[in-house]
């Protein structure tokens, strides 16, 4: 099984799903730094407009637009997706279903290298004449369809190219995730014995693969408008600017769940382990996930209530949007019910999982305001929306992402992370996140528009400026709060306490492999006897019962 491989085959052109997961993780963390830098520059400009940003310089309005655009693009496509989907999905799916690798290991490698190419393209776009894309991460034409409107020519072309490459990469990843889960499950691993994060990952993969197509078509049209002079989105040539918005959001809304579901999946894995209790309502959670996935295909136009689309369309989309809260409410209730009469401990992964839950609740609830078409008339394109999607996506990407990292770090790297530093990281992040983003709701209700470089240009926003300053201070502190994590991550990587196979006494299959698992994962392919969350089961003396541990008693055979 484990023949000696050269350095290049082991670390660079690896086909091992665990190495590919780490590669995605490192690129994702790199982009998170860039994304954080853009956030810092924007926040400074908003708090102290047209002053010199410490460590940078002045920010011109078109540069600010570029920051807005690149912050969104980077955080959604180059941080959230590679970390939550590609990294955790790649690492966990084969291990959790008891497979030695992905179904198509070389396709997996190709997917990472295409993603690297996408990253390189996006990076280059910062340095071409005219600067990077500045038409918003949603790239609405006609602004994005003609270089003259933004003054950005190659930056925006490269932006489209980078997104196309990224989509290609995640399509390959999606094919792999789905085929692997469908066909490579260990004996006894039925669909209803899959850990919930696997369900979440494959639902996310289905959503991505079935929604991205129209946007790929739309991106081809946009690129042709820019390069070949076609007029798909230009009304002077008979085109329709609104078409892009439909194609974009037809993908864009499922995309939100592509990010959110793996995040929730991480929480669902971690909560039972540190509550020593089965997840409450395993099947209802799966059904809710599928229902939410299906509904997510018919809610997209809630991003366009005021786009000039037919007003009669608004109500059907408003209704589906608000109703999508039901499956998510069920998942949240199930998480809360898991805590009932549990035996809860609070190491860093559990703290971050609980942080995700409590923050996601607020993000979900503010979504109802946006989903209600009449309320959206006022709050659309204001900072209320910005606060809302940071509550949902920051919780999924960073809180859940950190939870997953603290939890699976011993499995990934064979060493434990430092607990006190982890707890400090959590509390600082939790406090400063809320300190920054709760007030943002109120700035939004005050009417402050998104994507403006200088709120002081508007009389009605001037009284809100102290809040803006406060948000900026909190955000800067939030960024600084990540220093304990960076220190902890790097230090534990080299000096952390060596991890045993199953440091958390968890049930799922990855914990029965070595830490870190060798190429090929398992000594022998495990056989699966039961569902993944049998904690405190009356059938076992300990309060855990791994999926692959046979029980001699007949009661166990019935499981």
């Amino acid at each position, binding site marked *: 099984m484990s023949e000696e491989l050269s350095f290049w085959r082991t670390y660079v052109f690896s086909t091992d799903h665990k190495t590919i997961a780490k590669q995605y993780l490192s690129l994702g963390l790199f982009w998170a730094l860039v994304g954080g830098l853009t956030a810092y520059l924007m926040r400074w400009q908003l708090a102290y407009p047209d002053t010199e940003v410490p460590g940078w310089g002045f920010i011109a309005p078109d540069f600010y637009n570029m920051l807005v655009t690149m912050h969104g693009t980077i955080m959604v496509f180059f941080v959230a997706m590679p970390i939550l989907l590609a990294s955790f999905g790649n690492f966990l799916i084969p291990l959790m279903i008891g497979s030695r690798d992905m179904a198509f290991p070389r396709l997996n490698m190709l997917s990472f290298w295409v993603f690297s190419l996408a990253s390189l393209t996006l990076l280059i776009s910062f340095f071409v004449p005219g600067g990077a894309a500045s038409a918003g991460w949603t790239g609405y034409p006609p602004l994005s369809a003609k270089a003259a409107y933004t003054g950005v020519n190659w930056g925006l072309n490269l932006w489209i190219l980078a997104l196309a490459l990224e989509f290609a990469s995640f399509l390959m990843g999606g094919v792999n995730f789905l085929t692997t889960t*469908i066909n490579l499950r260990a004996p006894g691993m039925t669909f209803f014995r899959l850990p919930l994060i696997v369900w979440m990952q494959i639902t996310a993969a289905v959503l991505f693969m*079935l*929604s991205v*197509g*129209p946007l790929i078509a739309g991106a081809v049209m946009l690129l042709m408008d820019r390069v070949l002079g076609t007029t798909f989105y230009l009304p002077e040539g008979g085109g*329709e600017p*609104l*078409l892009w918005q*439909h194609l974009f959001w*037809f993908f864009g809304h499922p995309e939100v769940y592509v990010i959110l579901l793996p995040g929730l999946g991480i929480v669902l894995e971690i909560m039972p382990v540190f509550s020593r209790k089965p997840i409450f309502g395993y099947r209802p959670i799966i059904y809710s996930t599928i229902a939410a996935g299906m509904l997510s*295909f*018919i809610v997209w*136009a809630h991003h366009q209530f005021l786009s000039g*689309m*037919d007003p*009669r*369309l608004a109500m059907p989309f408003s209704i589906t949007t608000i109703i999508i809260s039901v499956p998510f409410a069920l998942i949240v209730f199930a998480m809360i019910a898991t805590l009932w009469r549990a035996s809860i401990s609070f190491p860093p992964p559990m703290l971050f999982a609980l942080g995700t839950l409590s923050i996601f609740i607020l993000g979900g609830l503010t979504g109802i305001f946006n989903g209600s078409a009449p309320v959206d008339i006022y709050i659309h394109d204001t900072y209320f929306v910005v606060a809302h999607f940071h509550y949902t996506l920051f919780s999924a990407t960073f809180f859940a992402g950190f939870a997953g990292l603290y939890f699976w770090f011993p499995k990934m790297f064979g060493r434990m992370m430092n607990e006190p530093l982890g707890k400090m990281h959590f509390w600082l992040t939790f406090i400063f996140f809320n300190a920054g983003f709760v007030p943002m709701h109120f700035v939004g209700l005050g009417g402050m528009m998104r994507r403006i470089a200088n709120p002081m240009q508007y009389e009605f926003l001037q009284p809100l400026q102290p809040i803006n300053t406060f948000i900026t201070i909190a955000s800067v502190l939030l960024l600084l709060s990540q220093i304990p994590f960076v220190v902890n991550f790097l230090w534990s990587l080299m000096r952390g306490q060596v991890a045993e196979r199953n440091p958390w006494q968890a049930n799922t299959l990855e914990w029965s492999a070595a830490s870190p698992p060798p190429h090929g994962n398992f000594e022998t392919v495990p056989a699966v006897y039961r569902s993944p969350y049998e904690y405190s089961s009356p059938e076992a003396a300990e309060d855990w019962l791994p999926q692959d541990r046979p029980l001699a008693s007949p009661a166990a055979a019935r499981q």
Partner: protein
Amino acid sequence: MMIGEQNRPNYFGIWMALLGLVAISIAASIVLPKSLALLLIFAVAIAKALLVALNYMHLKYEKLLLYIIAIVPVVIVIILLFALFPDFVFHR
């Protein structure tokens, strides 16, 4: 998968049928009034696509899972198509 010679579809015959259908749609576009012709042309296109998918892609020998994988995206595209109508077709 092995289809086996005995129940292998008549590949050549299906090709003839496809060509015949092309001829029908062209004839329709010349002879019939516009709206009727369009109806027939797209019915023929769907028939041709089904012939290719069922026989050449041998979906008719496959398990339910592959049918689902093939049909769900078609349904999604149809949803998208109808949702686009109010904004682009009826807006004048």
